[in-house]
């Protein structure tokens, strides 16, 4: 762009009020109609789609859990066949871990992080759109396969040699492995976007020690995703190669090793737990500060805990392999790390309790879910310290004790904060409040149902009930506890039905929320509910860790951004000092077309290695189309 042209460009400091708002809206809004919907690169539109899709997968995964609990409610039931049960528990685990837990956390980040750091869109918005389409296609691929009786049946971790061609000659493990590739590509894309958004697009003045705790949590999570997920992509791709073109990565008779799979899988699998849990802690910190009506005590301690947890999570994976015959010294080292991770987690919990203690808590539904989280997660953490110990782990390995433990950690550590987050941020996303009365019912049904469903599993495990059995005989004395557990699962499921009812009713006739219904302190509440396409008419300047509590009425702003094209402000990493103005991409159909081409390539390559040959040119064409200069102002720079 020439200097003369730039001089003529209209800036936001030349417009005021409604005129500025209307101008920015027209530039940033997603085009209407079907084509507009398919081309959207607005982080709020993509984030909402991500959230809704992830919750749809939660409902499907939950439905499978209910089917399993019906089957196990009594001895020797024939509600499900052994084969169908194998598929269902694999689909349940895979759906919950890969299609719900990780995506929903990233989805909240996609929606909230740009708002919380005070910018107009996420970094790499077209990559963001591509990520969503890949996630959607991967999830549909898995569930359509299941509907066609090709659903994976080798567990959510697909251990070899069970998943090898020799022992499972169907396409079921291939479906699992390629679904992994889909979802990991999507997750990696979002992780890169979040890191760049947090590092380079923060509002001026939002120094590293003024970043909201939820954003810190998502930053740490994104680094975990970037370092952990390549491991599982390598594993799943090499499994497909073993099965399709007879490589021998996991065949011990040809120089491979089955334990290589377990190392690769769990090097991803254990950080995966923290990829799900750490965003939950960020949500807890955000909710707690608002409803305790004071900043979280120990802001630096919480961040230290997040970073330490992130690092330590990469040194625990072998505790999933204690019974594989590894050297005892090695097991001892991983026991030490596994127990030590309780320290940063404990530090965070003490900070939250101190915040509640010192604050003036208002017990609304989001805070109830946070308190539920603390109770359940501490219980899950305690059983976690137990299974970190080699002698105990050896005894309870592959029993229902472990099933109880990880559901306490994952549902307590992630789902409770998540539901709290739904109640907390629903007004911002939709402009309407959820019903408080239904919310309290929702919480108590969830809390009671969860504990009735999963606490008995500790005892079932200790008295010897193994995981992944589709039935048991009456003389095992497991029937009463299983029936109790199934009853709890139904109550727990009802809590989600109630959440769904609450969401539908509130969307239709909920109380209007206003900009900041909770009197919260972070920047997403400084804009309207729901936010306009441009997020903020003027980019705020941050002078305090809790900017809206400092002085909500006169939040300082920066001026000088273009109102003729999509433009964002890039700031420095540590001090968040303004550096340059950067164009933000326009809507485009190419991310969708690239995702379609990639999906054809991925799915084709589980059937024939030639897919690598004929699948690549369409991907190349769509990528060239994606990056082809379109003559827009963005491309002229």
């Amino acid at each position, binding site marked *: 762009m020439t200097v003369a042209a730039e001089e003529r460009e209209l800036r936001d400091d030349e417009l005021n009020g409604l005129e500025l708002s209307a101008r920015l809206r027209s530039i940033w809004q997603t085009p209407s109609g079907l084509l507009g919907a398919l081309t959207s690169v607005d982080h709020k539109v993509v984030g909402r789609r991500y959230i809704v899709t992830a919750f749809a997968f939660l409902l499907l995964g939950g439905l499978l859990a209910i089917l399993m609990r019906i089957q196990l409610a009594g001895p020797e039931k024939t509600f499900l066949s052994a084969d169908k049960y194998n598929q269902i528990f694999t689909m349940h685990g895979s759906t919950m871990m890969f299609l719900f837990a990780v995506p929903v956390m990233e989805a909240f980040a996609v929606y909230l992080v740009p708002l919380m750091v005070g910018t107009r869109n996420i970094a790499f918005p077209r990559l963001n759109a591509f990520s969503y389409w890949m996630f959607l296609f991967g999830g549909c691929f898995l569930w359509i396969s299941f509907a066609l009786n090709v659903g994976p049946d080798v567990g959510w971790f697909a251990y070899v040699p069970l998943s090898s061609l020799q022992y499972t000659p169907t396409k079921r493990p291939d479906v699992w492995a390629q679904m992994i590739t889909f979802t990991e590509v999507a997750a990696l894309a979002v992780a890169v976007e979040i890191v760049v958004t947090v590092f380079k697009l923060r509002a001026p003045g939002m120094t590293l020690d003024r970043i909201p705790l939820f954003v810190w949590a998502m930053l740490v999570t994104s680094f975990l995703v970037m370092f952990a997920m390549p491991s599982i992509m390598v594993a799943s791709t090499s499994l497909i190669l073993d099965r399709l073109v007879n490589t021998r990565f996991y065949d011990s008779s040809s120089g491979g090793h089955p334990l290589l799979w377990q190392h690769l899988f769990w090097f991803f699998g254990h950080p995966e737990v923290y990829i799900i849990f750490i965003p939950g802690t960020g949500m807890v910190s955000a909710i707690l500060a608002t409803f305790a009506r004071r900043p979280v005590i120990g802001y630096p301690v919480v961040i230290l805990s997040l970073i*330490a947890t992130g690092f330590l999570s990469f*040194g625990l994976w072998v505790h999933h392999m204690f019974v594989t015959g590894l050297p005892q010294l090695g097991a*001892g080292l991983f026991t030490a*790390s596994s127990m030590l991770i309780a320290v940063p987690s404990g530090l965070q919990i003490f900070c939250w309790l101190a915040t509640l203690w010192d604050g003036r808590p208002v017990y609304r539904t989001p805070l109830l879910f946070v308190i539920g989280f603390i109770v359940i997660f501490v219980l899950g953490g305690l059983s976690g310290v137990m299974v970190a110990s080699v002698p105990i782990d050896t005894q309870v390995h592959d029993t229902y004790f472990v099933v109880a433990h990880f559901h306490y950690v994952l549902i307590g550590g992630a789902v409770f904060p998540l539901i709290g987050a739904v109640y907390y941020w629903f007004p911002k996303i939709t402009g309407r409040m959820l019903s408080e009365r239904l919310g309290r019912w929702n919480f108590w049904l969830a809390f009671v149902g969860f504990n009735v469903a999963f606490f008995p599993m500790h005892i079932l495990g200790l008295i010897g009930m193994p995981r992944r059995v589709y039935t048991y005989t009456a003389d095992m004395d497991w029937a009463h506890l299983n029936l109790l557990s199934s009853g709890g699962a139904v109550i727990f499921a009802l809590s989600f039905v109630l959440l769904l009812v609450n969401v539908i009713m509130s969307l239709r006739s909920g109380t209007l929320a206003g900009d900041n219904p909770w009197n919260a302190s972070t920047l997403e509440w400084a804009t309207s509910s729901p936010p306009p396409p441009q997020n903020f008419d003027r980019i705020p300047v941050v002078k305090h860790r809790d900017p809206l509590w400092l002085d909500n009425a006169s939040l300082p702003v920066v001026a000088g951004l273009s109102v003729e094209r999509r433009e964002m402000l890039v700031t420095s990493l540590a001090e968040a000092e303004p550096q340059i103005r950067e164009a933000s991409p326009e809507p485009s159909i190419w991310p969708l077309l690239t995702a379609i081409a990639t999906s054809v390539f991925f799915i084709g390559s589980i059937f024939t290695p030639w897919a690598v040959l004929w699948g690549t040119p369409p991907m190349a064409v769509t990528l060239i189309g994606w990056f082809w200069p379109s003559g827009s102002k963005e491309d002229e720079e």
Partner: protein
Amino acid sequence: MTAAERHPKLLYWAGVALGPLAWGINLQGVYALAHFSCETTKLSGTIMSAVLALVALAGAAISARAVRRGAGPEWTDPQGGGPRTFMAWLGVGSGLLFALAIGNQLAASLMISPCLR
């Protein structure tokens, strides 16, 4: 130019970098040395852990020194705005925490024979 600005930026980060790095090397190193140390000396893992615990502590000490030269009170200031001191304090905490983690692994290497399978 203030004293904080004159101080090399990397020193603020020393604890954040050295703590996890030392712990990662210790975890992988002792695990890899287990076979070797069974055949020769049982102390190789122990020595490695002790050295790396000192490295983590050194990271904490360097960050603590950076805090002393910077604007210390920013640590407790809810207003924020002192990112270097903030990162230096994180370095102090990180160095100490990972020294503790290495110490725990050191205890394991003292208690368990590397020859035990």
